[in-house]
C-alpha cells in the first residue's frame, strides 16, 4: 500500500489536532509517528505537505515518540532524511533541523550515548559558525537562514541541557566577531555564557581559556553533558527570584574570577552589548536579561558597562524588557494602552488658565474617564493606587473643594455603583463595583470617613437592584467588621423596611439570612410574618426558613417560636413544615451554644465537639432532669362560664425564660377525671403570657385542690422540674349556665326546673347578708351568667348547672336592708352544704 495522499494526511492531521489523546488511543494512532517519518522521504508528497507533517512533529513530538528510544530513532530518521535531500533549495531543511532537535530534547534522548545527538550537534555547530560542511550542505542561498536556525537549535539544546556548549564559548565568540547573523549568535553566546558562569563553581576554572579558544576546547568531547545534572541544587535560571536577595543560592558569590578571566569576560560582554542595538527589541531584552543575570555578583564587571544601552532603551517605546535596572516605562503586566498612545504615563493636567500643574504630590497614574475603561483590570489597579494615596493622605488636611483624593474616590465608587445599578447591565459591572468596594474596605478599613458613605451607597444600590443580593452576601463574607458590621445593619434595615410581598422577596430573604443579628429581631420577625404569606413555592419557603435558621443561630428571641409554629401549620409544602417544626423543636429544646452546634458545626462552639472528657460531666447533667424553683407563678383567674364543661382559667406570670413548658396537674381525691397536661412553647418574663385554659371533668360537683408540676427547658438547654403551689378549685368554678331559654319564656323555664328538683332533691333557705351595694351588685358580680329571670332590683331567679349532671336553683327575692332570703333547691342533696357555704361566702365578701 502506498503512502496516504495529501488529502488523507490533511484529514489525519486535522483529526489528530482536534484531540491528540483520543487520536493516539484510536486505531490510527499507533502508526502515526512511524508513517510520518517514512512519508517524509516519499517522493509522492509535496514539500508543502511534508512541512505540515514536520510542523505536527514540532508540536507533538512528546506524544508521537513518547519514550527515549522512540525519540532517538525518530531523530536519527529525521537526520537521515536531511542528509538525503538533494542539493537544490528546499523548504525542508530548516524544519528538519528543528524537528530533530525537538524530538531529541522533548523525548529525553539527549545525552552522550545518543547517536542522533552526536550527529546533530556537530552539524548544528558547524552551521552556526558558518563552517564549510564538506559535502555542500544545502545551496549557498540557504546558508544564512540555516545558520540562524542552527543557532536557535543549539540555544534550545543548551536550555534543556545547561552547560552543554560551555566548551564552545570561544568559537561562538569568534563567530560573532566575524560575519555572522548578529542576533542568533548573540543570543546563543549570551545563554551559553550565562549557563557557563552559573555552573562555573561546579565545572572549575578555565573560563579565560574557554572564551579565547578559536576552536572547541580540547578534551574527550566538546560537549559538556553532565554539568547541570551532577548537583543536588536544581538549575533554575530565574531563581533566586525578585528581589535579588539570596545570591548565595546559586553559588554566584562563591565564584572568584582571576583578573585575566574578568578582563576577558568584560570584553565578551561589551562585544555583545555593542552589537545589541542590531537585535530585535525582544531579543535585546533577552540579551540584557541574560547578561544581567550572568554578571550578578561578579567582581570586576562594573554596571556601567550597561549604561549606554540602558539609556537608549529607557527612552524606547517597546522595551519588552523585564527590567535590568529601573522598571520598564510601561507596566508590562497591564493590558496594552491604545497603540497610538505612548506606553508611558500620559501628559499631566493643567489648570484653567493654563498654568502648568507644578508641584505634585505622589506620581499616581490617573484614572481615565470611566467611558474609556472598558477593561476592569486597569480600573482596579488604579483604584488600588488611589486607595493607597487616600490611606497616606489621612494625616493631611482636606484639600477643600475637589482637592481631596477621598472625594475623588467617593465619586469613582458612586460612578461604579451607578453602573452596577443599571437594570439589565452585565454582571461584570456589578462585579467590578463590588471588587472596588472590597478593595476600599481592605485598604481603608480604619477610615470611617470613607466607609460611611460607602455603606450608604451600597445600601442605596441594594434598594435599586436587589437582584445583586449574592454580591452583597459575598462582600459581607469577605470584608472585615469595619465595613461588614455597618453594612450588615444597613442592609438589614433596608430589607425589613420593605413590604413582605415585594417582587424581589427571594433576594431579600437571601440577604436577610446573612444579615440578621442581634438588635433587629422584632422588625425582622415582623417582616418574615408579612413575607410568609407571599411564599407560595418551595424555593421561597426554604429561603424563609433559612432566615429563621439564621435567627435561631443568633439566639432566637421572642416571637420566633410563634413564627415557627405558625409556619409549621401554614406552609403548604410538607418539607417546609417539617423544617419549621424541626427548628421549633430545636429552639424549644436547645439553647445557647448547643443550638448553634445543632445548626451546624462552627468555630463559635468548638469545645462542644472536641473536648469529650470535659464535656462528659456537663453532658450527663444535661441529660438529667433537675429540680428547680418554679420559673413562673400560677394563679386561678376569673371563672369562664361557657361551653359544655367547666374550664379553669390559669394566669401565668413568668419569672424566668422557659421553653417547652409542660404543666401537669393532679386532682386531690379523685373527684375529677385525670387532667391533661398543658403545653406552653415558651415563657418570657418580658412578654405577657396568654392565660391557660384547663378543662375540668368533675365526677362529683365538688371543690378540690390541684397539685401542679412543671417540666421545662432552660435557656441553657437543661431540663428542669419544679413543683408549684397547689391551686384551689372552688365550688363556683364548676358553675355552668343552662342553655338560654326562649325569649319571654324565662320565668316558665325556671319554674319548670324548680319543680323538677323535688321530690328527689332537697330544698333549703339561707340568709345571705348584703353589703352596702345591695342585691343588684351582688348578683351582677357573682351570678350574672346564671340569671334566668329577673325583676331588678328585687327578684332574681338563678339556675346553675353543675357537671356532671346536677343543678342548683336559687330564688333571691324581697331583699331587706341587711340581707336577702335565698330559697334554694337542688336535685342533689349533697350540694346543699356546698351551696350554703358558697352563699355565706358571698355574704362574707360583701
Amino acid at each position: 500500500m502506498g503512502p496516504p495522499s495529501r488529502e488523507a494526511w490533511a484529514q489525519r492531521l486535522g483529526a489528530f489536532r482536534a484531540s491528540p489523546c483520543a487520536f493516539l488511543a484510536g486505531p490510527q494512532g499507533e502508526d502515526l509517528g512511524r508513517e510520518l517519518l517514512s512519508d517524509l522521504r516519499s517522493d509522492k508528497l509535496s514539500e508543502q505537505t511534508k512541512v505540515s507533517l514536520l510542523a505536527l512533529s514540532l508540536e507533538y513530538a512528546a506524544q508521537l515518540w513518547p519514550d527515549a528510544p522512540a525519540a532517538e530513532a525518530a531523530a536519527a530518521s529525521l537526520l537521515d532524511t536531511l542528509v538525503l535531500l538533494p542539493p537544490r533549495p528546499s523548504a525542508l531543511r530548516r524544519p528538519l533541523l528543528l524537528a530533530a532537535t525537538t524530538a531529541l530534547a522533548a523525548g529525553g534522548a539527549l545525552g552522550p550515548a545518543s547517536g542522533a545527538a552526536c550527529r546533530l550537534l556537530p552539524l548544528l555547530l558547524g552551521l552556526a559558525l558558518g563552517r564549510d560542511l564538506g559535502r555542500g550542505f544545502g545551496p549557498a542561498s540557504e546558508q544564512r537562514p540555516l545558520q540562524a536556525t542552527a543557532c536557535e537549535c543549539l540555544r534550545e539544546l543548551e536550555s534543556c541541557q545547561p552547560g552543554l556548549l560551555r566548551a564552545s564559548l570561544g568559537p561562538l565568540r569568534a563567530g560573532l566577531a566575524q560575519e555572522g547573523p548578529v542576533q542568533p549568535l548573540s543570543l546563543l553566546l549570551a545563554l551559553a555564557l550565562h549557563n557557563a558562569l552559573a555552573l562555573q563553581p561546579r565545572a572549575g576554572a578555565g573560563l579565560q581559556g574557554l572564551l579565547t579558544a578559536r576552536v572547541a576546547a580540547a578534551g574527550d568531547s566538546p560537549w559538556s553533558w553532565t554539568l547541570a545534572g551532577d548537583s543536588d541544587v536544581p538549575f533554575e535560571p530565574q531563581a533566586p527570584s525578585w528581589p535579588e536577595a539570596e545570591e548565595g543560592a546559586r553559588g554566584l558569590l562563591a565564584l572568584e574570577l582571576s583578573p585575566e578571566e574578568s578582563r576577558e569576560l568584560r570584553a565578551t560582554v561589551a562585544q555583545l552589548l555593542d552589537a545589541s542595538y542590531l537585535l530585535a527589541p525582544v531579543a535585546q531584552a533577552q540579551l540584557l536579561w541574560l547578561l544581567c543575570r550572568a554578571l550578578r555578583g561578579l567582581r570586576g564587571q562594573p554596571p556601567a558597562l550597561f549604561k549606554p544601552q540602558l539609556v537608549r532603551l529607557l527612552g524606547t517605546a517597546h522595551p519588552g524588557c523585564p527590567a535590568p535596572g529601573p522598571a520598564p516605562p510601561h507596566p508590562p503586566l497591564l493590558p496594552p494602552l491604545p497603540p497610538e498612545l505612548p506606553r508611558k504615563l500620559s501628559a499631566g493636567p493643567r489648570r484653567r488658565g493654563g498654568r502648568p500643574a507644578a508641584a505634585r504630590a505622589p506620581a499616581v497614574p490617573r484614572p481615565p474617564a470611566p467611558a474609556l475603561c472598558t477593561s476592569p483590570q486597569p480600573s482596579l489597579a488604579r483604584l488600588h493606587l488611589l486607595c493607597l494615596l487616600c490611606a497616606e493622605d489621612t494625616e493631611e488636611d482636606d484639600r477643600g473643594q475637589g482637592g481631596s483624593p477621598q472625594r475623588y474616590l467617593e465619586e469613582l465608587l458612586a460612578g461604579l455603583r451607578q453602573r452596577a445599578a443599571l437594570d439589565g447591565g452585565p454582571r461584570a459591572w456589578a462585579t467590578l463595583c463590588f471588587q472596588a468596594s472590597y478593595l476600599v474596605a481592605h485598604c481603608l478599613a480604619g477610615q470611617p470617613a470613607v466607609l460611611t458613605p460607602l455603606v450608604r451607597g451600597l445600601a442605596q444600590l441594594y434598594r435599586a437592584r436587589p437582584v445583586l443580593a449574592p454580591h452583597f452576601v459575598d462582600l459581607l463574607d469577605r470584608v472585615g467588621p469595619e465595613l461588614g458590621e455597618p453594612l450588615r445593619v444597613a442592609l438589614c434595615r433596608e430589607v425589613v423596611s420593605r413590604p413582605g410581598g415585594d417582587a424581589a422577596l427571594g433576594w431579600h430573604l437571601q440577604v436577610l439570612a446573612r444579615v440578621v443579628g442581634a438588635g433587629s429581631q422584632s422588625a425582622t420577625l415582623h417582616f418574615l410574618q408579612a413575607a410568609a404569606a407571599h411564599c407560595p413555592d418551595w424555593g421561597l419557603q426554604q429561603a424563609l426558613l433559612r432566615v429563621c435558621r439564621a435567627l435561631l443561630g443568633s439566639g432566637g428571641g421572642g416571637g420566633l417560636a410563634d413564627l415557627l409554629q405558625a409556619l409549621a401549620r401554614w406552609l403548604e409544602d410538607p418539607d417546609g413544615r417539617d423544617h419549621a417544626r424541626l427548628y421549633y423543636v430545636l429552639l424549644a429544646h436547645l439553647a445557647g451554644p448547643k443550638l448553634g452546634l445543632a445548626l451546624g458545626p462552627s468555630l463559635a462552639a468548638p469545645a462542644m465537639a472536641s473536648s469529650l472528657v470535659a464535656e462528659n460531666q456537663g453532658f450527663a447533667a444535661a441529660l438529667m432532669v433537675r429540680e428547680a424553683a418554679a420559673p413562673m407563678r400560677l394563679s386561678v383567674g376569673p371563672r369562664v362560664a361557657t361551653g359544655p364543661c367547666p374550664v379553669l382559667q390559669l394566669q401565668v406570670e413568668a419569672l424566668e425564660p422557659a421553653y417547652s413548658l409542660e404543666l401537669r396537674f393532679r386532682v386531690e381525691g379523685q373527684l375529677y377525671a385525670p387532667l391533661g397536661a398543658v403545653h406552653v412553647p415558651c415563657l418570657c418574663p418580658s412578654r405577657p403570657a396568654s392565660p391557660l385554659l384547663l378543662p375540668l371533668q368533675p365526677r362529683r360537683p365538688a371543690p378540690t385542690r390541684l397539685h401542679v408540676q412543671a417540666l421545662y427547658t432552660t435557656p441553657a438547654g437543661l431540663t428542669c422540674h419544679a413543683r408549684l403551689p397547689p391551686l384551689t378549685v372552688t365550688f363556683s368554678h364548676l358553675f355552668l349556665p343552662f342553655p338560654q331559654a326562649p325569649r319571654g319564656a324565662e320565668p316558665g323555664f325556671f319554674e319548670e326546673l324548680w319543680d323538677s328538683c323535688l321530690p328527689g332533691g332537697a330544698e333549703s333557705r339561707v340568709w345571705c347578708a348584703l353589703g352596702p351595694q345591695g342585691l343588684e351588685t351582688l348578683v351582677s358580680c357573682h351570678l350574672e351568667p346564671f340569671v334566668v329571670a329577673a325583676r331588678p332590683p328585687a327578684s332574681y331567679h338563678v339556675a346553675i348547672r353543675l357537671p356532671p349532671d346536677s343543678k342548683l336553683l336559687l330564688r333571691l327575692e324581697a331583699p331587706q336592708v341587711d340581707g336577702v332570703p335565698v330559697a334554694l333547691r337542688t336535685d342533689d342533696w349533697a350540694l346543699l352544704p356546698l351551696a350554703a357555704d358558697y352563699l355565706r361566702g358571698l355574704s362574707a365578701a360583701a
Partner: protein
Amino acid sequence: MAQRAVWLISHEPGTPRCGTVKFSRRYPTVEKRASVHNGANYVPVPEDGPFLKALLSELRLLGDDKDFVESRDSCSRINKTSIYGLPVGSEELWPVVAFLKNDMIYACVPLVEQTLNPRPPLISISGISQGLELLFGIQDFLYSGQKSDTELNTKLSQLPELLLQACPFGTLLDANLQNSLDNVGFASVTQPQKQPAWRAGTYKGKPQVSISITEKVKSMQYGKQDIADTWQVVGAVTCKCDLEGFMPNVTVSLHLPTNGSPLQDILVHPCVTSLDSAILTSSSVDGMDDSAFSGPYKFPFIPPLESFNLCYYTSQVPVPPILGFYQIKEEDIQLKITVNLKLHESIKNTFEFCEAHIPFYNRGPITHLEYKVSFGQLEVFREKGLLVWIIGQKFPKSMDISLSGTVTFGAKSHEKQPFDPICIGGTAYLKLHFRILDYTLTGCYADQHSVQVFASGKPKISTHRKLISSDYYIWNSKAPAPVTYGSLLLLP
C-alpha cells in the same frame, strides 16, 4: 524565558461553545523544561478543547453571567493583571497570559524557570513580558491594514509559518511578525554581515524619506467651577525611509518655535541608535524644570523597511484649541440644549473638517427637533438619537458659534437605541471631531533641511504635520460627569 503554548481564540458569543480555537502552537521542548523546573507542581498544558472552556469561563465569556458564580464573581477575586490561573482537572495551570481584543482572545502559557510553590512574583517571570510581546505582535500582524474577514483568514493561515520563523522554540526572536514574513521573501538574498534584525532586506528604488508629525489633542471640559477642565496633546512622528543599502543612517531633528513648551515623555523606536539623556529628563509626571531642554531633538536611527513611529511625545500646551460649553435642561419629555464653541485665536482656522457629535443615550428615538445654529448645519439621525453639527472648514470671524434647540424623544425600545453605562440621566456629552492639516498644537516641526541621510543617492525628503482631535469631550454642565484625573494631583 519561553512560551509553552500559544493560542488564538475567536470569541463567538451566542454559539454553543462561545469560541473557536483559530490557531494554537505548543512547544514540547519548553514543556519538557517546565516539567523539570516545576517539579511536583507541574501541570501539563491541556488540549485545546478543555483549555478553551476553562479560559472562556475565566474571562467571563461563556455568556452565562445570569447567575452569580463565586469562583468568578466574588469581590475578593481581584485580578489587576492579564495573568490567570485556569482550573485543569483538579489542578491549576498558572500563569496563563490572556486578553481579549477585537473579539479575539490572545493567550499563552509562559515557562516559569523555578519552582511554582510558593508562586514567584510575576515580575520575576521573564516569560510573561515576552508572552505579552508575542501576543501583541500577533495582534499587530493580524490587524495592521486588515480590512475584511478574508484578509484576516489569510493572515491566520500564515501564522504557523511565521511563528516557525519568529518563535521556533517558544522563545520569541522578533515581535514584529511582518519582518518574519519579509524574511521569508528575502531568504534567497545572500546577506552581508551586521544587518539589523529588524531590517530584513534591502530597498531598491528611488530614495525618499517621509516624516509626518501627528498630534492628537484630548480634552475633558465640564463648564463647572469645582472641576478643572483638562486637555493634553500627544504627538507621534511617523517615518518611512526608502533608502538603498544595508545599514543607512538617518538623523531627524524636531524643532520647536521660540517660547514653545518643551516636549515631554519622549519615547523612541528601538531603531534609534543613541539618545541624548537630556531628551529623556523632561517628564509630565515628575514636574522637572521645563526650561532645561527645548530642542532641537535629534534622533539618529537605522530605519526599518516599513513605516514606523520614530517617536512619541506629550506637551503642556497652554490652552485647548476649542473651548466648549454644553448645557441640557430637561423639561417634561423635552430636552433643551445649548452649545457654545469658541476657537482660540492662536489656532489655525483652516480645518479639514470640524464636527460636533451630540449623542443622546438611554432614550428613545428623536421624534421632534427645533433648533437654531449661528453657523454651520445640523444633521439629525433620529433612530440613533444623534445630532451632528457640521461646522465645516472655518470658524466665523468672531470665532464663537452657538447651537440651541429642543429635542423630543419617543418611547425607548431596548434593541435599537444606543445604550451607555455612563450617560445616565442628565449626564451627557458632546464630542468634537476635527482635523487641521499642516499644523501642530505644540508648534513642533521637522525641518526637511535638517534631516541627515547617510546612504547612497540623494533622497527626496518630505515632511507633513497635522492636528486631530481624539476623545475631545464637552460634558453637560448641569449634571454629574465622569471626572478624569482632574483635580486629583493639583496643589493650590
